[in-house]
């Protein structure tokens, strides 16, 4: 199969003042019709820049610095802007990562898809409408007629991504570039979208350049793989060659960091319960005028769970399942309507605000977004010492304690005087952890602590959490949407769907032979299930 799109020694220069001189250095790769090439790499590896370079939509100050981009034998690098516009959308189409913001909020889906035909063809309005209906049916959007007239905010993330795909494939482009199309979606939706792209690609024979950071997705969908690191292609080949015996050290390290689905042998956990969640529920009432026309959403419905002393209870589920709300109820960031939360003999749910403030010593929380969970205006040491100072430790003692905590979480104690923006994502999560541990809490609530990190950094933080648990005898409530991570970290797991716990128990049983249909569907939609069933790396 002759390659339809070839990148030959393509380099892209960054404006001065950026963290490195070039975004892409001598990148050579090619993709043929009917083939899916996966470009995989961590954030900052230049994989998205490749897509921009091909489409010649480089951001301000960034310029092509040599190399050829051949599309059907024609070098796009030198082509005029008018010519390039003919290629964009008709020759090479593109779909993006954030379904929420990638569509114009003020215009209907039908208009935005129809616009492809208005630009590139001179079809009559009625013909365009018909083509749009056909496309929407092809991408299996429920009720295509209504979808065409709907506005982006009226559709779910998955439906919006289907609309994007319909838009991209409107003019049967030769090449489809997909820049992390499923990263922002739930696991189940992600599986459907991947399956849709696979099916459309097989039927239309389009060449697909699929950009992702998730090796699971690579295993699921790729024919060939190109691994990128710091703007260079470090390894390239068929998916079996690259995944099963990676040659380059960086690839090996990346693959090793992906937590396997198979849980490690169960740890011995005591049966004494440290935290008991008893029939907790929380409902939100929004909108409505004087009681009429209110929309009631049951975020958490009658949940009862037990966290054994020293053990880790995982709570998994898709977005909107209520797992975060439940976590916030535990630390009383949100006040549950009913039910009680027993922590060593005291019901946190019934405490007054004042009493709860004193109780915060025993239960602490680690947050998801490393960039938002630390106040940019305070020094790192102060952030960690803040809890202690509030609870009465004199400032000097608190700062000294902060220094010890920094070394405990593997950070250079001298760094306590630096500001948050001077640390990497991984380091910030360590600071968050140090802050939570400063008060020596009995229970640690971790809300998606690693999902915002790159795979390699994720592995290090999980490793840190594991030995802290061992050393300090921590009991942890671990919230995540990534079943692989849950498998490696948790002793017990509870699967939540629309506010209810559908299944709970030891991780090996729940993941080994799931009883509830939803758990089964959840496990089935994890991309690249087979991949990484080898021995657990983490144990």
């Amino acid at each position: 199969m002759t390659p339809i799109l070839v990148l030959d020694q393509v380099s892209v220069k960054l404006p001065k003042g950026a963290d490195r001189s070039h975004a892409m250095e001598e990148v050579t790769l090619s993709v043929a019709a009917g083939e899916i090439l996966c470009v995989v790499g961590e954030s900052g590896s230049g994989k998205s820049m490749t897509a921009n370079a091909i489409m010649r939509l480089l951001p301000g100050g960034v310029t092509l610095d040599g190399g050829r981009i051949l599309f059907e034998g024609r070098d796009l690098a030198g082509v005029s802007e008018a010519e390039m516009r003919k290629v964009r959308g008709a020759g090479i189409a593109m779909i993006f990562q954030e379904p929420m913001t990638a569509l114009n909020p003020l215009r209907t889906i039908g208009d935005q898809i129809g616009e492809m035909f208005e630009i590139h063809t001179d079809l009559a309005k009625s013909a365009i409408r018909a083509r749009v209906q056909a496309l929407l049916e092809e991408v299996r959007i429920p009720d295509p007629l209504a979808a065409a007239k709907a506005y982006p905010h009226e559709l779910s993330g998955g439906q919006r991504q289907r609309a994007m795909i319909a838009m991209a494939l409107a003019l049967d482009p030769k090449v489809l570039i997909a820049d992390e199309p499923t990263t922002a979606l739930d696991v189940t939706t992600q599986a459907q979208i991947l399956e849709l792209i696979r099916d459309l690609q097989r039927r239309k024979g389009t060449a697909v350049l699929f950009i992702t950071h998730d090796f699971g997705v690579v295993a699921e969908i790729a024919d060939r793989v190109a691994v990128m690191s710091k703007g260079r292609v470090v390894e390239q080949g068929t998916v079996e060659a690259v995944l099963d015996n990676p040659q380059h050290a960086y690839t090996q390290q990346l693959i090793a960091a992906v937590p396997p689905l198979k849980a490690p042998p169960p740890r011995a956990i005591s049966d004494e319960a440290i935290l008991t969640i008893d029939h907790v529920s929380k409902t939100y009432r929004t909108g409505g005028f004087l009681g009429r026309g209110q929309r009631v959403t049951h975020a958490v419905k009658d949940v009862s769970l037990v966290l054994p002393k020293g053990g880790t209870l995982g709570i998994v589920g898709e977005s909107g399942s209520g797992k975060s709300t439940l976590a916030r109820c535990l630390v009383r960031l949100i006040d549950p309507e009913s039910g009680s939360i027993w922590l060593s003999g005291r019901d946190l749910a019934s405490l007054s605000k004042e009493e709860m403030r004193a109780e915060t010593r025993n239960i602490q929380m680690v947050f998801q977004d490393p960039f938002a969970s630390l106040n940019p205006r305070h020094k790192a040491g102060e952030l960690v010492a803040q809890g202690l100072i509030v609870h009465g430790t004199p400032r000097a003692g608190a700062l000294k304690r902060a220094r010890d905590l920094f070394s405990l979480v593997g950070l250079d104690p001298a760094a306590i005087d630096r500001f948050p923006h001077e640390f990497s994502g991984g380091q910030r999560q360590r600071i968050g952890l140090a802050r939570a541990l400063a008060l020596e809490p009995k229970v640690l609530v971790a809300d998606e602590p690693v999902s915002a990190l790159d795979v390699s950094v994720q592995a290090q933080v999980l490793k840190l959490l594991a030995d802290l648990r061992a050393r300090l005898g921590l009991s942890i409530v671990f919230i995540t949407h990534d079943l692989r991570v849950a498998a490696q970290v948790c002793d017990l797991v509870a699967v939540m769907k629309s506010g209810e716990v559908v299944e709970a128990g030891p991780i090996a049983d729940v993941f080994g032979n799931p009883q509830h249909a939803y758990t089964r569907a959840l496990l089935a939609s994890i991309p690249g299930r087979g991949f990484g069933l080898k021995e657990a790396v983490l144990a």
Partner: protein
Amino acid sequence: MGFVKLYFRSPPAVIGLILLLLVLGMAASAGWLYPKDPLALAGRPLIWPFTNPRFLLGTDNSGRDIAAQIFHGARISLQIGLVATVISVLIGITIGAFAGYYGGWTDTILMRVTEAFQTLPNFLLLLVLVAVFGSTITTVTLAIGIVSWPASARLTRAEFLSLRNREFVQAGRTLGLRDASLIFREILPNALPPVIVYASVVMAIAILLESALAFLKLSDPNVASWGNLIGIGRDVLRVQWYVSAIPGVAILITVLAVSLVGQGLNDALNPRLKGR
């Protein structure tokens, strides 16, 4: 610090800074260059500028030296602008902070009050305040401050609404911080920069309001403010138009300087806004 480098990269911001320094210089050197009371009778009324060496910018219809009034006026206008801005920004921040942080009933009530101030034309309220409390320099400055706080209140409230549920604030809550420290130690430092930048707009408007009041002969007559000079010049506008023109230009330059500096700060603060 990248901020300063970013600021000096845009030419308008630099021009604004130079103009501002010029006006500040005028205000500072007023006492030294023109020691006599600027409102003192210096010579014949209505001398044209540049015709008499002793009065570079000529004299007004009360025979007072215009140049002296411009220099001393710089001090007054900047003082009024600054003090009025501080008052309005302080009121604005407090109301905006509490409305934004607590929400619910407090927010509704405070927003009703802000809306009331914004629905009522501010210059009309200024007229009533000056009519009631008299037109000395303190009452005029206070009145301008009281009239122009709603805009900064709305801005602060918007900042607080967006920062209130940020994770670092929730982290603070889990650590057991009280509301007061959450507001003033956690949220406010992050909410301040856009409000400080907006303060330049408030100051520009304050100076314009004072000159409008003086134009209607409602400002403090014992003080050599630019607005007063324009008001006096209004009577001789047909022939000696320079008596109103010169202070008009002075106000133009000062407000231009303040706005340019404000815009420079704003662009340096979020460089993305400056576009490609």
